[in-house]
């Protein structure tokens, strides 16, 4: 099973290394990347400073595996990677990294959106938004 969850933020260095690893795969002609960044939302004079992610891993991992398999059935991809943070990720840092590669560009756009939507809708991950007075609220996906 592919490892998806990463403790803490997904760093720009990690993303760059992932890209570099694909330069030996010469059948690839197009990559597409989605990066989810923690936004400093403001609510009633409070600002989100970080999101603390938890997940039900025993269910999340098989679900991610199913999304992965179904994405390969649906789209003609050479490879795909999904990474999601657990634990605390500060505003401005990256918490979701979806990376798909194919021979040509058309497939990668649609596949990226398909994966991101399914991860948000179907994987049991929970975001606790930490506010600047150290209280919190629970993230709601729209």
């Amino acid at each position, binding site marked *: 099973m592919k490892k998806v969850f990463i403790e803490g933020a997904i760093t720009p260095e990690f993303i760059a290394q992932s890209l570099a690893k694909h330069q030996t795969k010469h059948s690839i002609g197009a990559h597409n990347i989605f990066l*989810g960044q923690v936004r400093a939302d403001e609510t009633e004079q409070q600002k989100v400073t970080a999101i603390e992610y*938890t997940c*039900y891993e025993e*269910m999340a991992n098989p679900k991610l595996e199913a999304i992965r398999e179904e994405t390969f059935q649906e789209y003609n991809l050479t490879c795909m990677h999904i990474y*999601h943070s657990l634990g605390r990720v500060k505003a401005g840092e990256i*918490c979701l990294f979806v990376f798909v590669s194919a021979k040509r560009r058309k497939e990668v756009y649609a596949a990226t959106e398909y994966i991101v939507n399914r991860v*948000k809708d179907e994987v049991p*991950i*929970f975001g606790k938004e930490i506010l600047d007075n150290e209280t919190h609220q*629970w993230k709601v996906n729209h």
Partner: protein
Amino acid sequence: MAVIKYFGQIAEATGCTEEKISLVNSDLKELIQTLNEQYGLERFQKNIAVNQVIVKLEDAYSVQDTDEIVLLPPFSGG
């Protein structure tokens, strides 16, 4: 012993992430109702997973001693 797990705002309300309950052939819907009353969980929108699969409470189900029942708030990954 069946294991009951809680996540997110639901775990916050129960004050624990996991508990073990001895129940055999107990109706799932009744179990959830008991937990709702015990911890005041009616106010939460939630999904119920039995052994890692989301189930519908309308479908009758008898909880087995080896089951893992999980109360999940709305997913908010990404």
